[in-house]
């Protein structure tokens, strides 16, 4: 039992290590001090006000949102189709196909970024929003495939077969049976893709056209000097979005699925 006490204590320490720094950012967002660090001088919402009046940050937010939503759309559509093939059909070389679909994860993002940039340069095309969209989509695709595939395995084929045998045509079956059953997988994949795009900085720094900032590159640019209180406030808002939305979605999904039963 002594060992178990040690294991529990160690686990608490590691969780503290993981969360204490994040908690400190959340805390400092409300610090009234002129500087981004300690000591805490008082409670203030001042820096949130500054944030919403900062045009550059607001612009970066809009860019990141648009980019994230479009990335989610592109990679989820492609990812769902590929996952359906993997889960629903038997074909030779399936294992090889799965490895190929996941392979972009194994390419270091820095290398992926430089490669795509050089390809574009060869095509005489400038950096653009479209490059960011395509690039983010390919980074998100393997994760979408993995997540969606895991969800799809749980959906039984018998439901569709039952619908067909009861006289539904293939189109009806897809929209009235398959698609509603797919929805949680679609949603999980899209959410994952959005988060990956919204958070990406490693490749984005290479791909963004000059003058275009996403939220992470904007923060990166602001960091050159020091951590400003505005960055803390921005961090607070970002954490609320990227943690709050999936939690809320997960909670709602649970609530509704319980209601049905």
């Amino acid at each position, binding site marked *: 039992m002594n060992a178990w006490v040690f*294991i*529990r204590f*160690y*686990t608490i320490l590691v969780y503290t*290590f*993981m969360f204490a*720094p*994040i908690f400190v*950012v959340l805390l*400092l967002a409300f610090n009234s001090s002129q*500087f*981004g*660090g*300690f000591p805490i001088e008082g409670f203030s919402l001042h820096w949130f006000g500054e944030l919403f009046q900062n045009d550059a940050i607001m612009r970066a937010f809009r860019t990141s949102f648009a980019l994230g939503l479009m990335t989610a759309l592109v990679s989820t559509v*492609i*990812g769902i*189709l*590929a996952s359906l*093939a*993997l889960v629903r*059909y038997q*074909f*030779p*070389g399936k294992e090889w*196909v799965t*490895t*190929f*679909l996941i392979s*972009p*994860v194994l*390419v*270091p*993002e*820095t*290398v992926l970024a*430089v*490669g*795509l*940039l*050089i*390809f574009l*340069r060869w095509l005489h095309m400038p950096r653009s929003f479209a490059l960011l969209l*395509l690039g983010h*989509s*390919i980074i998100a*695709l393997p*994760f979408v495939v*993995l997540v969606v595939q895991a969800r799809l395995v749980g959906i039984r084929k018998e439901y569709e077969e039952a619908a067909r045998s009861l006289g539904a045509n293939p189109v009806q079956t897809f929209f009235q049976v398959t698609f509603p059953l797919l929805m949680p997988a679609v949603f999980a994949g899209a959410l994952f893709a959005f988060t990956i795009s*919204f*958070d990406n*900085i*490693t490749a984005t*720094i290479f791909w963004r056209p000059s003058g275009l900032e996403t939220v*992470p590159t904007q923060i*990166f640019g602001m960091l050159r000097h020091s*951590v400003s209180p505005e960055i803390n406030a921005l*961090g607070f808002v*970002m*954490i609320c979005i990227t*943690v709050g939305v999936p939690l809320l979605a997960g909670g709602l999904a649970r609530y509704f699925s319980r209601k049905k039963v």
Partner: protein
Amino acid sequence: MGDATVGLDRRPVLLLTPAFFAIIALVVIPMAFILVYSFYENIDLAVDKVAFQFGNWKEVATDSYYHNAIWKTLRISLTVTVLAALLGYIPAYFIAMTKFRHKWLLLLLLILPFWVSFIIRTLSWIHILGNQGALNGLFVTLGLVGEPIRMMFNEFSVMLGLVHVFLPYMILNIYVSLEGIDGNLEPAARTLGAKPWQAFKEVTLPLSMPGLAAGSLLVFVLTGGSYVTPLILGGPSDFLFGNLIYDAVVTELNWPMGATLSFTLLVLLGAVVVIYSRFMGLNQLSKAFG
């Protein structure tokens, strides 16, 4: 697909086409272009000439600056991986074995960091280790030191930041393989006379190796490809190989050199992936997302 699919169902081929097309156009072809560009010649800022010469490769092969960067990157990646394994194994074991009613909460907390912005998690260490950070504030208040001590912008803070960011990958992978172990095995070993530690060492630890290996691979490759963390948490001499690529492409606009360095990194980290997949196969990697 080729001949094998003739006479078979065409639907999976159709479903897979968009994904295959995207990966070939956006990953495979660009990788080929990196190799081609590494033979080009850099003339001036952002000006390069189509050529087939080995100047860039010669520079990478002979200049000790690049050799040092490679060794440093491998050393830091290995250190970060070992630290993540040491920090991560026990919590993964705890989550897998606990009878705690709210185990889902521990798992949720494990996934939560993935949703917190990478750059926020990285810069948060400035608030812990910096001159105006929590630790210095604490030390000064307690009277342990008169002046804030310098703990930031060195190799230590870079490695700490990397461990912090990549640790959840490690824990999640180890947890998944521990969770898959038959819960009766360890008690069975105990019944047969093994001490608790022996039962763990002889039964559980070997069975959890695939997860430990998958987590280690991910942490190693992710660290090896990093360049943003050293820019935020490191000093001028704390660079990884990725920083050389960043400098070549973004700062010096030397595309051929950037391509050569990128291909070098791809081969280095690719070799690690290949060695891993020879022993483990790549299936384990996808299990953590189930």
